[in-house]
């Protein structure tokens, strides 16, 4: 007899996606009604996940684990969904008849990612990862307009499918050489056989699937095109929730290697350095705000890898903390982007000119989020970077931290360019004041408060992520 209560967040999101699947088959539903339904369902979802945060247990003959680690990530994912739905008041980037499918795919993707963070068996990891990817491929295709989305959607699909095929082959090699597929048992056996070449090849191959999700160096080519071509809300989702899930599963997989072998650490160090350098250097020359954020995501994937490759409890907990801070900061940037481009078009950085006069609260939120991404105190981004670099220093990776610090300085340049556009540049023609609804103002205020509070009083979150990381070791 399985204890189904602990499965309730997943059940709930399965229900939500079924509701939207049925709604997509009904005719003539007003977009406002859909938006309201989605908002209510998503906010209840956050409540359900919060209520289940202390549950623990195993399901499906031990292939599915509910522990603090997975539950913390489920709360973050449901928060991500709720925040993205908050931005869907206009949803201009997607044709009206596709709105129900848009919400269906969003909730199905959230469900899949929740299953991903709970998976502790190679098969469940694979199934959940594929389910979430398929929803995202289709979401990118939904962009309104004739050609937008098709190129990038196909690129995303082909790169993603190749990455998952490589990952599957890695799984097969790993299973063939150590005959267990439960992550817990792999954790016991793997450190002993980590010097065998086939195991190292298997690990490298199977990490590619997760590197693709996180847009780490050899698999980052999709990121700028997809960010640019997908509808703004879909980009928000990819930049926030899907990154959080990718960080979670990467932590779970890398934690398998125990203290790690020299090969694996060297590979991860190289990837991390190349990823953040490429991301930051490419971001410097971007004109399109979404492309800039895409490259900054690539750079942040590099920073997160530093925390993960430390392979210590401090490293993993810092990566969890960083996932939360990315969720908040990236979402704030996209909140401003969605609200400024009210007809769903893409936004150049110079279009932000005069934002402080058009909407002071949005300009303030943008500035705090960008300061956070650049790692300026007292924001949550500073605390996250501090934790990650401290964890790496404890392991003695001085050069790595030094290169990361240089990268942070590079990134400061282009973040400040955006802030300059919002605060100092004057628009070419006089633009009217932005009509920002009160609820969005409150949301922006809450996000600013959250980012500053997370920077000044991070103890509670640090404590939580430390306990969550403890369940992995």
């Amino acid at each position, binding site marked *: 007899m399985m204890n189904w209560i602990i499965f309730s967040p997943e059940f709930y999101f399965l229900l939500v996606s079924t509701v939207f699947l049925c709604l997509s088959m009904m005719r003539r539903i007003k977009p406002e009604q859909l938006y309201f339904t989605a908002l209510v369902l998503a906010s209840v979802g956050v409540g359900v996940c919060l209520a289940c945060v202390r549950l623990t247990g195993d399901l499906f003959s031990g292939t599915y684990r509910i522990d603090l680690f997975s539950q913390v990530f489920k709360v973050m994912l449901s928060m991500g969904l709720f925040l993205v739905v908050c931005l869907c008041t206009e949803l201009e980037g997607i044709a009206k008849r596709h709105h129900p499918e848009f919400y269906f795919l969003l909730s199905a993707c959230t469900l899949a990612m929740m299953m991903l963070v709970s998976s502790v068996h190679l*098969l469940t990891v694979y199934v959940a990862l594929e389910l979430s990817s398929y929803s995202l491929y289709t979401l990118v295709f939904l962009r309104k307009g004739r050609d937008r989305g098709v190129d990038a959607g196909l690129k995303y*699909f082909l790169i993603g499918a190749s990455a998952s*095929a490589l990952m599957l*082959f890695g*799984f*097969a090699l790993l*299973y*063939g050489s150590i005959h267990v*597929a439960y992550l817990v048992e792999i954790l016991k056996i793997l450190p002993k056989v980590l010097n065998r070449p086939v195991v190292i090849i298997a690990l490298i191959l199977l990490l590619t699937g997760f590197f693709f999700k996180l847009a780490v160096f050899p698999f980052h080519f999709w990121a700028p095109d997809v960010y640019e071509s997908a509808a703004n809300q879909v980009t928000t989702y990819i930049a926030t929730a899907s990154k959080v899930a990718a960080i979670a599963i990467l932590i779970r997989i890398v934690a398998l290697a125990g203290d790690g072998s020299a090969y694996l650490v060297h590979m991860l160090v190289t990837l991390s350095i190349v990823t953040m350098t490429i991301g930051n250097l490419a971001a410097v020359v971007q004109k399109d705000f979404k492309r800039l954020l895409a490259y900054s995501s690539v750079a942040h994937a590099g920073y997160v890898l530093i925390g993960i490759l430390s392979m210590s409890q401090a490293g993993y907990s810092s990566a969890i903390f960083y996932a939360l801070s990315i969720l908040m900061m990236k979402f704030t940037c996209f909140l401003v982007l969605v609200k400024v481009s009210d007809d769903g078009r893409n936004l150049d950085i110079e279009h932000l000119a005069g934002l402080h006069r058009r909407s002071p609260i949005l300009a303030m939120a943008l500035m705090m989020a960008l300061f956070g991404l650049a790692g300026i105190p007292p924001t949550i981004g500073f605390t996250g970077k501090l934790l990650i670099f401290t964890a790496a220093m404890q392991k003695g990776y001085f050069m790595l931290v030094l290169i990361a610090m240089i990268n942070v300085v590079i990134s400061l340049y282009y973040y400040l360019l955006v802030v300059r556009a919002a605060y100092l540049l004057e628009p070419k023609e006089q633009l009217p004041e932005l009509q920002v609804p009160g609820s969005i103002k409150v949301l922006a205020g809450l996000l600013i408060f959250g980012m500053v509070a997370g920077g000044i009083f991070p103890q509670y979150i640090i404590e939580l992520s430390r306990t969550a990381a403890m369940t992995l070791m």
Partner: protein
Amino acid sequence: MIVPYSHVIVLAGIVFLMGMFCAVTRRNLIMILLGLEIMLNSGAIAFIGAALRWQLLEGQAIAIFILAIAAAEVSVGLALIVCAYRRKGSVDPGAYN
């Protein structure tokens, strides 16, 4: 097990490389998709070989799941290709830029 495990792995590796070659070199989206399918199937072969090597049924169960997922991938992929074909009038990815 009559066939040694190493032979199965070599077979899976060859099939995987063939699939990858097909996916990389073909100029037709449907053939690229086919190449991806072949890559997935080589994973299934490797799992079945591993199941025989260790005399565990787990690997075979995973292979069945892989078949189902490959079918889902083809259906999503073909839907996307049809959508792209309607908008662009071609299945050659080179013609999309």
